[in-house]
C-alpha cells in the first residue's frame, strides 16, 4: 500500500518534470512594439451652484478642462480653461461647454432652473400667460383603467383651480390620455372619461365650463414610449393645454 503510494508519487513528479521541461523549451513571443502615444483627449466638466434659483437671484458657474486649447460656453463665449463666473439669468437655461484640443473635442453641460415667484398675478414682461399656464397648471394622473380622481391628485387639482381662478381669461383644453395597454377604441372612450372627470372637478369648483374643451387621445399620443409601469403611469393623465 505504502509502496504503491510512493510509486504513484514518483510518477507524478516525473510527469510534472517533463511538463516543466517542455514549458522551458518554448520560446516566449517577443512583445509587440508599443503603440505611439495618442494625443491626450481633452476633459471637461461644468457645474452650477445652486442649480435652482428664484428669478432675480444669481448662481455660480464653475468649469474645469484639461488638454484643451479652445474652451467656450454657449451664451458666454470663449473662456479660460478653468474658472468660475456669476450668472443671473431670467429664465431657466442650460450652459453648454465645448473644449477643443488636438486630441478631439469634449462637451459638458449643466442646467440652471429659474423659478418664478408663486402666486404672482401680474406676469413679468418676460413670461407670457402661456408660460405661466405651463408653469403653474399641473396634470392630473390616473390609476390603470380608472377615471376617478385619485386622492393624491387633489393637490394638483387645487393648484390648478387657484391659478385658473386668478386668470379668468385663459381658456384651455384637457386632454385625456391612456397607457399603451389594451384596446385602441376602449382607451379612447376611457381617455374621454378622464378628461371629463378633470373638467367636472374644475367646474364643480366654479371654473366656467365655457373655458374648458376636452379631447381624448386614448393611447394615440403617449408622453413616454417604453413598455414599463414607470412609463404607463406617465401616460395615464389629464393633460392641460393652453388655448391660444
Amino acid at each position: 500500500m505504502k509502496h504503491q503510494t510512493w510509486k504513484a508519487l514518483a510518477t507524478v513528479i516525473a510527469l510534472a518534470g517533463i511538463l516543466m521541461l517542455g514549458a522551458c523549451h518554448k520560446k516566449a513571443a517577443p512583445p509587440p512594439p508599443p503603440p505611439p502615444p495618442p494625443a491626450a483627449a481633452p476633459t471637461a466638466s461644468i457645474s452650477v451652484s445652486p442649480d435652482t434659483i428664484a428669478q432675480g437671484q444669481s448662481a455660480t458657474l464653475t468649469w474645469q478642462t484639461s488638454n484643451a486649447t479652445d474652451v467656450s460656453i454657449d451664451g458666454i463665449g470663449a473662456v479660460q480653461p478653468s474658472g468660475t463666473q456669476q450668472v443671473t439669468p431670467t429664465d431657466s437655461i442650460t450652459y453648454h461647454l465645448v473644449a477643443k484640443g488636438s486630441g478631439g473635442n469634449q462637451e459638458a453641460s449643466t442646467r440652471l432652473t429659474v423659478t418664478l415667484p408663486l402666486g404672482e398675478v401680474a406676469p413679468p414682461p418676460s413670461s407670457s400667460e402661456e408660460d405661466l399656464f405651463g408653469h403653474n397648471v399641473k396634470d392630473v394622473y390616473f390609476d390603470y383603467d380608472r377615471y376617478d380622481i385619485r386622492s393624491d391628485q387633489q393637490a394638483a387639482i387645487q393648484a390648478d383651480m387657484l391659478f385658473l381662478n386668478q386668470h379668468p381669461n385663459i381658456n384651455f383644453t384637457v386632454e385625456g390620455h391612456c397607457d399603451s395597454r389594451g384596446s385602441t377604441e376602449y382607451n379612447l372612450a376611457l381617455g374621454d372619461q378622464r378628461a371629463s372627470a378633470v373638467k367636472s372637478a374644475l367646474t364643480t369648483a366654479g371654473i366656467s365650463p365655457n373655458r374648458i374643451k376636452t379631447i381624448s387621445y386614448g393611447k394615440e399620443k403617449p408622453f413616454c414610449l417604453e413598455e414599463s409601469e414607470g412609463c404607463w403611469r406617465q401616460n395615464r393623465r389629464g393633460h392641460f393645454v393652453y388655448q391660444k
Partner: protein
Amino acid sequence: MNDTHRPVPHFTIGARLLSVLSLLILLGSLFPSTSFAQDWVRTGSGLGLDKVHLAVPDFKPSSSDPQNDALLKAFNDTLWNDLDNSGVVELVSKSFYPLQVPGQPPEVTFGVWNSPPPNAAMLAFGNLGVGAGKLTVQGWLYDVKNTASPEVLGKQYTDVATSDAARLIAHKFADEIIFRLGGGIPGITESKIYFVSDRSGNKEIWVMDYDGSNQRQLTHQGSVSLSPRVSPDGSRLAFSSLTKAGWDILMFSLDLNRLVSFPRFGGTNLSPAWSPDGARLALSSSRGGNSQIYLCDVSGANLHRITSNKGPDVGPVWNRKTGAQIAFVSGDTGLPQVYTIEADGTNQQRMTDQGYAVSPSWSPNGQFLTLAWIRKYGPGEPGSSDIYLMDIASKQWVQLTHDGGHNDYPSWAPDGRHIVFQSSRSGKEEIWMMLADGTKLHQLTFTGRNTQPNWSWK
C-alpha cells in the same frame, strides 16, 4: 484520508446539480398541466369529414406571346393560394403529380390522378393564352373518380392581358371551385379588407384584397383615423377620425372615392357599425356625458342612446343574421367586458366572465362572437391578448390564437370560415388571417403598423 476527502466536493456539486435538474424537471411537468391547460379544440363545419383531395397542376400556356409566362405565373400562384387558403379542400402536393399534366380535357389520364401517389378525388386544370392584348383562360374541374362523366365545371374567361386581370380570373375560377366543393357557400376571393395603416405617416384608412394584394390608401385626413367599417353593400365606409372639433364619425363613399356628409354629434364619437340591412348605424358617443352606445339612421338622423352604464361603452357590432341584437364592450364593472343588448335597449347580458374582453365581431350565421380577450389579467398573471370564439347561446368559448403577441380586432369573412385580426407576433402590429378554427394562419401586411381590419360583407 486523502482518498476519501477529495471526492466529497465533487459529490456535493453533483448532488446540487441533480437536485436543480430534478426541480427543473418537476417545474417542467407542473407548468404544462397548469398554465397550458387551456382548451385547444378544432371547431368547424367540416369537423370529422375528410376534406376533398384536389390536385391543381399549373395551367399550361396556350400561346407563345412574350407576356404569356408572366401572366401564367400570376394566375397559377393566385389560384393555388386561393384554394390552399379556402379551408374546404386538401391540395395534393405538386411533388406527387405526373410529369405530363393536362391543359385540355383530352389530355387527362384518369389513372395517374385517381390512384396513388396523387390519389386525388378532383382535378383542376386548364390553359392560359395571350393574343392581341387579350387574355384567355380555359379551366375545368374534373371528378377523376367518375371517369364516365367527370366534368364538374368548365369555364372560359377573357379579359385584358394584365397581371391584375390574370389574378382576377384566378379568383373567379377559384370561387367557382370553392362554391361547388364547399357546401354551396360562396368563396371570398373577391372580398376586401379595410384597415388602418400608419405607413403614410398618419393613421389613415386603407383597403386590400383578401389575400393582401393591391394595398391602397383611401383617406387623407392627416390626423388619426380609426375603426373602418364597410357598409353591407360595399358602397360606403364609416370610420372615426380626429377632426378640429374632436372625434367624429366620418362617411367615405367608395363609389365616389371621397368623403360625403355626415352630421357631427358633439363629444367623442367612435366605432361605427352597420346594421345588416345597411339602414342604421350603432356607435359610441360621449355627447351626453360618458361614452354610451347610440343608434341612428344611416343619414345620422334619429340618434338615440340604448345603453346607460357607468363605465365607457364602445365597439358595438350588430348580429349579422337577425339585426336585432348588438354586442359591445363596457367598462361598467371595471375592466372591459363584452355584453349583448337588444337593439331597442332591453335585455343587456354580460357574455365574458373575467379578464379584459374587447372587440367583439359577430359571425355571419349569427351564432358566434369572436373577440379579443386577456382571460387571466392582473399582477403575476402575464396573460396575453388572444382571439377567442364564443357560442352566444351557451357562452362556451374556444381559444383560437396561441402563438404570442398581442392579438386584437378579429373580423369575420363573409364565408364564416375565415377570421382576420391584428397581431404583434411578428414584432409590430400587422394584419393576419386564419381559418375560424385557428389553422392556416398567415400574415397579410408587412409595411408600417397595420391595425383594426374589417372584412367586407361579401
